[in-house]
């Protein structure tokens, strides 16, 4: 019995919602893990901002070609049907609404779908990459995240306190505790860990969780 999902398990859950043949962009870091868990019989096609569509998994260590990398600068591989293109064409795919899904990390997600994931404030070096393009481009923008911060503060909030990446862009959040949709400016609870009451989940969430139907058990394999 886990009391929360691991990042790998969150990635697994997010992967279950990706349809066969979907064009998918996975954010740098944690979201990249989603690619490992495509359900049998389904094949998504992965896009990376730096100009590759339909790349394959990481090569064995020592066999990297550093001209064949993803947006996180990690080595990837070719697959039959891979295509290369320049950055303007790559973001035409993003901004033009051609991606089916983008899965990103988050510092905060607000109940209206606002996302904050690029800046923790005025200190340090700001860096945005392709996130602001992705959130207004992909047909569906989902977030995978711990349900609360390391300090135990809610990451699902009424309104973001950190600088926004995009306005009203996120429609589903996969957390370490639950699956939550965003519709009509509200958090709709869809799935939660069976070990957790709705009240307990609400206590860890920064705005009201609405129940518009039965809440399914969030069941994920050991990974």
């Amino acid at each position, binding site marked *: 019995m886990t009391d929360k999902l691991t990042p790998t398990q969150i990635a697994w859950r997010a992967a279950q919602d990706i349809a*066969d*043949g979907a*064009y998918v962009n996975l954010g740098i870091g944690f979201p990249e893990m989603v690619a490992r868990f495509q359900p049998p019989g389904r*094949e998504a*096609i992965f*896009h990376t901002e730096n100009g590759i*569509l*339909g790349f394959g998994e990481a090569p064995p260590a020592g066999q990297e070609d550093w001209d064949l990398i993803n947006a996180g600068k990690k080595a990837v591989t*070719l*697959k*039959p*049907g*891979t*295509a*290369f*293109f320049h950055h*303007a*064409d790559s*973001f*035409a*795919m*993003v*901004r*033009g*609404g*051609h*991606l089916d899904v983008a899965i990103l990390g988050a510092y905060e997600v607000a109940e209206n779908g606002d996302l904050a994931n690029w800046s923790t404030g005025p200190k340090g070096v700001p860096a945005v990459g392709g996130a602001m393009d992705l959130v207004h*481009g992909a047909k569906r923008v989902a977030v995978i995240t711990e349900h609360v911060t390391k300090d135990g503060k809610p990451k699902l909030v009424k309104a973001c306190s950190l600088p926004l990446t995009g306005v009203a862009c996120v429609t589903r959040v996969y957390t370490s505790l639950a699956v939550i949709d965003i519709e009509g400016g509200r958090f709709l609870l869809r799935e939660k860990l069976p070990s957790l009451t709705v009240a307990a989940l609400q206590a860890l969430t920064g705005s009201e969780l609405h129940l518009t139907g039965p809440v399914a058990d969030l069941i994920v394999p050991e990974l």
Partner: protein
Amino acid sequence: MDKTLPSLAAAVAGIEDGMTVMIGGFGGSGAPIELIHALIDRFIATGHPKDLTVVNNNAGNGHVGLAALIEQGMVRRLICSFPRSADPVVFTERYLAGQIELELVPQGTLAERIRAGGAGIPAFYTPTSFGTDLAAGKPVEVFEGRPYVRERWLKADYALVKAHLGDRLGNLTYRMAARNFNPLMCMAARVTIAQVSRIVEPGGIDPESVITPGIFVQGVVAVPDPAQEEDLNRAKAVYPKVQA
């Protein structure tokens, strides 16, 4: 994932009355003649689709391809840059008779508006057409002392394009100057159907040489020995053939 389609008829089955259809090609080069003729076949059999808005650089030549589509009365409105050709009689007569609307767009603006549609850019500024009748009613803005005209994106319900090689993922190459508007239209349509001279296995196109990545293509149909509009016109072809 397999985007190949069993027939030309299946390829054009989803095009409905009133839709906007981008048709690739510059004159005859890169014109998807067989897809256009399949659309005409459907219209003759069913009366649909009609009232189409067609986006193409030209307005057809002779009595095949786009000219034949216009001749059937399927096209309500044409968006193009150059409605002249060696034999423009079909368009010219209908236009002068007020039976077809024309939106004339400078060629580079047409190309950029289509690209913008595909790239999620709703508007952009261009120096082209400033001070001319074609800029009438369009917002003008001065940047760095020079006036520019604001132009809007163009999108379509369908794009019908002609490519050279294609794979089941929708990756495409083109043949020489038959590339022209085709890759842009692939980007700008909700559904892009490509006729290709040959379907190859994924990987059969060098990843460096893919011109249209498959994300921009929804259907691929094989037309192994495509007609060239110029050859059809030199042979005085008419589509559909008059039944004896």
